[in-house]
């Protein structure tokens, strides 16, 4: 064997070792803050990258704009980054929203890679379109974290609620518990058709409701939008007269508005955690449950990126804990806020993820919702 060949082989082995260390199968208990970054059931893959010294340049690439949840997400990322103990790790924080166009979001992430940012957290507008840019990020050494609407790519850390459990075991189960008689007609208010989140949440709902074959289900499509939800629920009330319970994905203030406007008897309602909905349940004594996917996912994702950069390992697919509260336990100033707008997300962050993930309304409102 010539020296040249030996050197080449040596380089090859080193390259292989480096490549392996990028996705080292560490034991699940070794991952960073497992009480917050809980691996999804059946997901054993662990992500770790070569550690580097801070402070870091971090970017957040949001997709859709003009949604209150997304604006609060941006505010909470800024509020988290502004806390002195976190600010020390962050040299620069840049947040952009690119709208619904997938080409624009890919270009935004490419621009951050080119500009040498250490990490980019993003809410993908489409779960399938990011494979090429994920590869470019890995080549350039940029850490990507996908959250809320995660990408279908095992090479990046993805952070998301467990939607089946969210809608089924937690929300639908609580609604059933609060029905005096487990029979009659239940109204299901669904989200945007064709979206994978709507599909999973519907499956979770069916899983629980199908245990009661004597219950009849009426489905309407509310597009996760309060106005649409109110309209379709009013229409359903006009057609069916009355329901024995309502399970709504998002935009559920539309449900309580429609029920109250129609003078409908108080039946259990399961819904989101927007201030308007929680208030409507608490102040009108409507039995039910508020289940939250908190905009606090933003800072949880940014903190995950920083942990990776510091050399910690994280599960490739993280399922966040799901905060929820029933009507009987709702307290003003804690679960709902009489002085805040109806669109305010009452669960500001994930308490299970540490004290730095809980925000007061004042802290959030001090931050602007734009990219600065």
């Amino acid at each position: 064997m010539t020296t040249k060949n030996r050197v080449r082989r040596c380089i090859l082995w080193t390259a292989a070792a480096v490549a392996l260390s990028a996705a080292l199968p560490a034991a699940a208990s070794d991952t960073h803050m497992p009480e917050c970054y809980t691996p999804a059931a059946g997901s054993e893959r662990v992500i770790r990258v070569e550690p580097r010294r801070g402070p870091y340049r971090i970017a957040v690439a949001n997709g859709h704009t003009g949604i209150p949840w997304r604006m609060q997400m941006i505010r909470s990322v800024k509020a988290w980054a502004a806390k002195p103990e976190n600010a020390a790790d962050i040299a620069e924080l840049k947040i952009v929203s690119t709208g619904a166009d997938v080409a624009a979001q890919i270009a935004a992430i490419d621009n951050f890679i080119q500009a040498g940012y250490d990490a980019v957290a993003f809410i993908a507008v489409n779960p399938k379109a990011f494979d090429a840019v994920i590869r470019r990020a890995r080549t350039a050494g940029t850490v990507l974290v996908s959250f809320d609407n995660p990408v279908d790519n095992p090479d990046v850390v993805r952070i998301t609620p467990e939607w089946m459990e969210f809608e089924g075991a937690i929300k639908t189960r609580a609604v059933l518990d609060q029905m005096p008689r487990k029979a009659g007609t239940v109204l299901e208010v669904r989200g945007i058709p064709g979206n994978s989140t709507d599909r999973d949440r519907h499956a979770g709902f069916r899983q629980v409701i199908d245990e009661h074959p004597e219950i009849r289900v009426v489905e309407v499509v509310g597009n996760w939008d309060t106005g649409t939800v109110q309209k379709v629920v009013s229409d359903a009330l006009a057609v069916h007269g009355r329901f024995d319970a309502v399970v709504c994905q998002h935009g559920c203030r539309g449900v309580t508005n429609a029920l109250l406007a129609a003078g409908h008897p108080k039946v259990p309602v399961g819904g989101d955690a927007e201030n308007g909905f929680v208030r409507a349940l608490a102040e009108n004594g409507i039995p039910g449950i508020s289940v939250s996917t908190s905009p606090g996912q933003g800072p949880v994702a940014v903190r995950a990126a920083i942990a990776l950069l510091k050399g910690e390992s994280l599960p490739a697919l993280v399922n966040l804990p799901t905060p929820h509260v029933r009507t009987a336990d709702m307290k003003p100033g804690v679960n709902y806020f009489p002085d805040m707008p109806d669109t305010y997300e009452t669960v500001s962050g994930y308490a299970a993820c540490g004290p730095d993930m809980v925000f007061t309304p004042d802290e959030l409102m001090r931050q602007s919702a734009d990219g600065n």
Partner: protein
Amino acid sequence: MIPALRLLVRHNDRALAAWALLLALLLLFLSIHPRGASGGVLAAWANQGVALAFVAVGQTIVVLTRGIDLSAGAILALCNCAASALVRGDPAEVALGIAAVCLIGAACGALNGLIVVRGRIQPIVATLATGAILSGVALLVRPTPGGSVDDRLADALTGTVGGVVPVSLLLLAVLVAAIWGPVRASLTGRTILAVGSAEPAAYMSGLPVDRAKVAAYALAGLFAAFGGLFLGFQTLSGDPSVGASYTLNSVAAVVLGGTALAGGAGSVAGSIAGALVLRTVGSLIFFTGLDPMAQPLFEGAVLLVAVALGAGRLLRIRNRLEVFR
């Protein structure tokens, strides 16, 4: 020589204005980009705009006939979904897949043309209807985002030549020159412009009016297919809902590029600049840190100002009849 140059500038003043605007915006973008001008930055910038530029080229050809193609975005989405199912496998399969996707696009466009010409339906209504139908077909082909596209070819087409020139821009230039160039010089191409400026006169002169119109819509479909293919190379997947923003943005790019919506005058090159201007404005906004909510407002303002400047010629006119020349 000088008078010839002057004539050239005068005949293409609006397209040149669009290119000047693009150049100014691009220089501004590169100057505020933290990385500055590099191959990667230019490639990301070009890749973002090329799909829209392809659609805008097709839209221009239809607009030149005094028509409009509201199905452009739907054809792009359908071709993107078709690409995610066909453009993979060994090189021969990839080549066949690309040819099939182009054929699908051209066929959809030709269908539009036949409905407009034979069915005698207003283009705006005909293409609105076919657009809805084709969106439905795209959803049938691929109900949710997915599929895959050959990634070696995708990497090559979204990269750079020599680390400087984005391949996507070269691809755009070559395809437009190789397809629209010869057509524009032919009888059909001249008829496309003649139909837009005075259809009865073109008909009375014995020009092949119907053939030109069908050809214009078919070309629009073909260029939309290029857009859908390129989007597939960018995303390595197909998405049935991807086309929504492309239809109206392509019309905006056509207007920015100086083509008259009344038909008969304008250029494909101007529309390419228009499409890239729209995308550059979007990129500028986020590196200047402007509120993303203000982006549509900002884009609208740029469009309005550019069109108003283009219409400045009207102010210098002494005799109103000159407008109709």
